């Protein structure tokens, strides 16, 4: 944890071994640091400690001192005696202190875990075959590790509401709930709006919403992630695929410049869900519901797959040579995108330099929510600034470019991933120029474009984005692009080759980064492969003083030095 002073270390004795852990850690965190696990359900590092599941019980002890004199009490070997507490304590609410002794593997602790598991399973339904959490369920894991292999419970299980519709994106199964209260604390502490609470008492305690107030917050699906069992499930992912078939790949959310770290879960080329990936400097463990749904756009209809020249399908090699012919025009301009990765922007900058084209960009703004959706709706505006593609914050329209087209100063226009009509160019202006469009979906102005070429979405390619904190974060390829779609890097590298600017430009990431780290001072010493999963802060230099639109949100303050 960043707020803990790393310099202050405390020595504790964990299962007979003296280890040094940062002061302020609790025993669950300390165990994690040592590569061990104290099982827990209700404790979550990013939420307050409630200590109600009792799964993390351990035995603790402190070195004994004589009550009258304060002298250490020694045993026959000359070592200080340890006063073991006769009853176990919960690890999540026990902060480490110097000399603290912890036992996690004796019969007392094993008995506690076994007992807690048995009580939880007494009323837990045998729903695993139909439960979406199966495979990543804490109760399943701990039952097999700490539970008994048969049930002594002969009474009827408590009947509670099942498949309750509590919000637009969530279904609640109360029988599966183990009353850990993580979801309640998430609402109260992170989104600061209470939606959920317990009603009834004892084994009849039931999680529910207030009648008439659906759980419709844009961060509601985080409760599904932190639910240790399958009580809260996502409607979108419900009964779609078992989790053990899905392959998680690290990615970055493109919803805003906050650069939320995500995992994209896919099977056989199809994305099934997106979940947040913990990054304490960016998004903690959270992400927005709207960001999770972005994958739907990518598999939807309207994908641009086969290259088209003048309305006819054409092979990619031939299409590229047609584009190269158009680019040899002296009066060319490029509309770049902040949805492109740093590497793609770098190559586009080179292409613009080679053909002496002016580069235009459009800013996309949205309403921020002060949490993880920032006001800038693009993931990589700062990447475009750092690579030198642009030098100012772009305007929200292309009127300047429109004027140039009207004046006949632009005859060839290359547009990457942007909607030119929305950006204010008229149909007449588009018809006037030779338009080359590279994008994921067929644009509304497709009939005006001379060349249309598909590029991969964020899930179908690897690269890096620079978020609003000037943190460069990499994303990996989760699924292959549709057949026939070349990567933007390949397209740009081939175009650079064809216009005769720099033959043999690398179309893959690692060699592209060798040039990036050489030519862009902010990226000096970095490489794609060595970039850590949590990203690396880069120096924005004088660019930091530009008037960015973002206001303060989680882990971001504007103009922070």
């Amino acid at each position, binding site marked *: 944890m960043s707020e803990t002073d790393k310099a202050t270390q405390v020595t504790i004795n964990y299962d007979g071994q003296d280890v040094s852990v940062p002061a302020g850690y609790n025993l669950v965190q300390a165990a994690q640091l040592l590569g061990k696990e104290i099982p827990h359900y209700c404790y979550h590092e990013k939420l307050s400690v409630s200590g109600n599941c009792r799964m993390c019980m351990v035995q603790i002890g402190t070195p004994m001192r004589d009550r009258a004199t304060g002298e250490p009490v020694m045993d026959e070997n000359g070592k200080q005696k340890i006063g073991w507490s006769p009853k176990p304590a919960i690890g999540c609410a026990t902060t480490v202190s110097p000399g603290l002794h912890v036992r996690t593997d004796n019969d007392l602790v094993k008995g506690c875990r076994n007992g807690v598991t048995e009580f939880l399973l007494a009323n837990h339904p045998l729903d*695993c*075959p*139909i439960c979406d959490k199966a495979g990543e369920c804490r109760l399943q894991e701990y039952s097999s590790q700490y539970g008994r292999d048969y049930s002594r419970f002969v009474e009827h299980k408590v*009947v509670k509401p099942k*498949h309750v519709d509590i919000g637009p994106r969530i279904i609640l199964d109360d029988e599966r709930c183990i009353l850990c209260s993580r979801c309640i604390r998430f609402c109260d502490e992170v989104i600061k709006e209470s939606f959920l609470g317990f009603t009834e008492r004892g084994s009849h305690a039931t999680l529910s919403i207030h009648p008439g107030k659906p759980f419709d917050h844009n961060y509601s699906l985080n409760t599904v992630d932190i639910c240790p069992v399958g009580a809260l499930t996502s409607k979108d992912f*419900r*009964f779609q*695929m*078992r989790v053990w*078939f899905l392959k998680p790949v690290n990615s970055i959310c493109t919803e805003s410049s906050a650069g939320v770290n995500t995992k994209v879960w896919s099977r056989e080329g199809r994305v099934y869900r997106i979940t947040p990936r913990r990054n304490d400097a960016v998004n903690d463990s959270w992400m927005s519901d709207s960001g999770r749904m972005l994958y739907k756009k990518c598999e939807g209809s309207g994908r641009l797959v086969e290259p088209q020249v003048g309305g006819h399908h054409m092979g990619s090699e031939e299409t590229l040579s047609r584009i190269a012919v158009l680019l040899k025009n002296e009066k060319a301009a490029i509309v770049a995108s902040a949805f492109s990765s740093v590497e793609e922007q770098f190559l586009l900058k080179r292409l613009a330099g080679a053909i002496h084209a002016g580069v235009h960009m459009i800013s996309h703004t949205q309403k921020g929510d002060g949490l993880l959706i920032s006001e800038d709706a693009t993931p990589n505006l700062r990447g475009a600034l750092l690579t030198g593609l642009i030098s100012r914050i772009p305007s929200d329209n292309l009127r300047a470019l429109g004027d140039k087209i009207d004046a006949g100063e632009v005859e060839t226009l290359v547009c990457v991933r942007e909607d030119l009509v929305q950006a204010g160019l008229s149909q007449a202006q588009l018809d006037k120029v030779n338009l080359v469009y590279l994008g994921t979906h067929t644009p509304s102005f497709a009939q005006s474009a001379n060349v249309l070429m598909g590029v991969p979405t964020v899930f179908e390619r690897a690269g890096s984005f620079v978020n609003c904190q000037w943190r460069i974060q990499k994303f990996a390829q989760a699924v292959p692009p549709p057949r026939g779609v070349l990567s933007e890097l390949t397209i740009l590298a081939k175009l650079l080759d064809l216009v005769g600017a720099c033959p043999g430009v690398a179309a893959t990431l690692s060699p592209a980064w060798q040039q990036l780290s050489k030519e862009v001072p902010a990226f000096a010493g970095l490489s794609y492969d060595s970039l850590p999963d949590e990203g690396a802060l880069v120096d924005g230099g004088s660019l930091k003083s530009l008037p960015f639109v973002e206001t303060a949100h989680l882990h971001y303050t504007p103009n922070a030095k």
Partner: protein
Amino acid sequence: MAKIVERPKLTLAEKTYLPQIIGGLKITFKRMLRPWVTLEYPEQRPQLPENYRGAPTLVCDQNGREKCVSCQMCEFVCPPKAIRITPGKIQNPAQAHVEKAPQAFEINMLRCIYCGLCQEVCPEEAIVLQKVFSLNSRTRAALVHDKRRLYELGGTLPDNILKWDKKLEQAKAAEHSTH
């Protein structure tokens, strides 16, 4: 170097071949009078043992409810990856308490190795290797059994526990007791 093999010296009886012919015919006539051990296959069918592992099939319980809840354990465990399931929600209100059932269920019998792991792993006893052993077709597609074909082959296998129905009864009883 060539090796010279000497011909065996035959007696006169042996030279006539008659003792051998008579010996052979003896066996033939002995067998002719004994009961048959072979089957005239397509017309006659073998008696298969109870634990015979033939083609995997899907079964319904005695109330006609499809037992499979599409947990996909069989798909996971299948060594030759012959099983392919598309899970989905149960639309039929009479069985809505079970919530989940397969939308599509395919077993590629060209890949199946009849190992029986799917039957062993099934938590609902819904997939059973039955005595179907003669699968043949003129097309490959016909040997990829879909859900309809699997239930057709499987039929009904009574369930002694009926856990889902019991659960529904308990839920109904609880509802009455609170009102």
